[in-house]
């Protein structure tokens, strides 16, 4: 049985009908086309599917869609304002903190929400440039604490 799901995604109110066994990740990607939300491990270990749920980073692969009822969800697509990238996005570009880009949306959203980056895996290379980018954003007032 489908259920109504009302949430705010990247500032826009959306109303959907979803089956309750679907994850927030699936609804964001498949129903709303927000493919910046990445499915990596699908077991909560890699952080590629990180989104902000009411401002807090969570793994959307382990969030049941009905748990987003009434919530405000931010994906990487929601960070730019008026065509201008967010300070954390700019910092990742400035510091070359991107290789294939698969983990990047989750890294950026996690960095905006938490003090530490523990729950995001990069399989291209390593974390030095990513850490550098986050420090750079912090020093420019882009603040890891959005």
């Amino acid at each position, binding site marked *: *049985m489908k*259920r109504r799901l009302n949430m705010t995604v990247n500032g826009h109110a959306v109303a959907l009908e979803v*089956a*309750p*066994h*679907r*994850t927030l990740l699936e609804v964001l990607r498949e129903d709303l086309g927000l493919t910046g939300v990445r499915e990596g491990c*699908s*077991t*909560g*270990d890699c*952080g590629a599917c*990180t989104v902000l749920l009411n401002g*807090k*980073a*969570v*793994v959307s*692969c*382990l*969030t*049941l869609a*009905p*748990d987003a009822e009434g919530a405000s969800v931010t994906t990487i697509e929601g960070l730019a304002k008026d065509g201008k990238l967010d300070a954390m996005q700019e910092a990742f570009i400035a510091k070359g903190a991107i290789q294939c880009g698969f983990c990047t949306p989750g890294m950026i959203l*996690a960095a905006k*929400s*938490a*003090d*530490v980056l*523990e*729950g*995001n895996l990069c399989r291209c290379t390593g974390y030095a440039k990513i850490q550098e980018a986050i420090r750079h954003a912090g020093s420019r007032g882009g603040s890891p604490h959005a």
Partner: protein
Amino acid sequence: MRPFEYEEPRSIEEAVSLLGAPGKNRLLAGGTDLLVRLKRREWPVDRVINLKRIETLRGIEERGDWVTVGALTTIEELERSEVVAKRWPLLREAAMEMASPQVRAMATAGGNLCNASPAADLAPPLLCLDAQMIAVGPRGERTIAIRSFFAGPGRTALAPDEILTGIRIPSAPARGCFIKFCTRRAMDLAVVSVACAVVSKETRLALGAVAPTPIRVAASAEEAAMRCAPIDDVRATAEYRRELVRVLAGRALAKAAS
């Protein structure tokens, strides 16, 4: 995941009655273990009962001689709680070392304990603190001492129609620490974990990941190493774990005494 029926009870009574209904019912708290099991099809399920809309299951409350941690309190809330920080550093350390910020924001105290992993991070500190588990079922409420709560890997003393609603901790403060040995710094399960607490001059020791359940042991590194019953698995051999118990229990006891 396979489709399932879904319920969002608003009260504990409603949740208990749904849990007792025919079929394979599963409680959803944080979801960080349940959804993984359902995706892997390890647990058959007809109905998922989401407890998150029951407000009374959340939060940390001091009342008289006890502090009650609601079963749906998140690991992040435990980690940030002043009540926890000022009384029980070992419990705070266990919360902080779990998983990742994203998972700690979702995972719950009750979920960590009810899944009854031998490596459950909250178990050794709560064993040291003599916590009591509050269970509610169709026959009402009862408390279970945490020392008799874990029955085996994935098994607890809860009846199939009972729900863990909270964890009561005697409010006396305790010095002590939690030491978790992992092969990487974040996002890892314990190879061995050790909690040590000094509660009004009594020293207590508990171990995780070295027996079918988390266990309380005598406050001696030698006895702890003798008493534990570790297995060989993907993370370590039994022999290595036993040696780790000896070393880490010694360190924890020394730290708690200092």
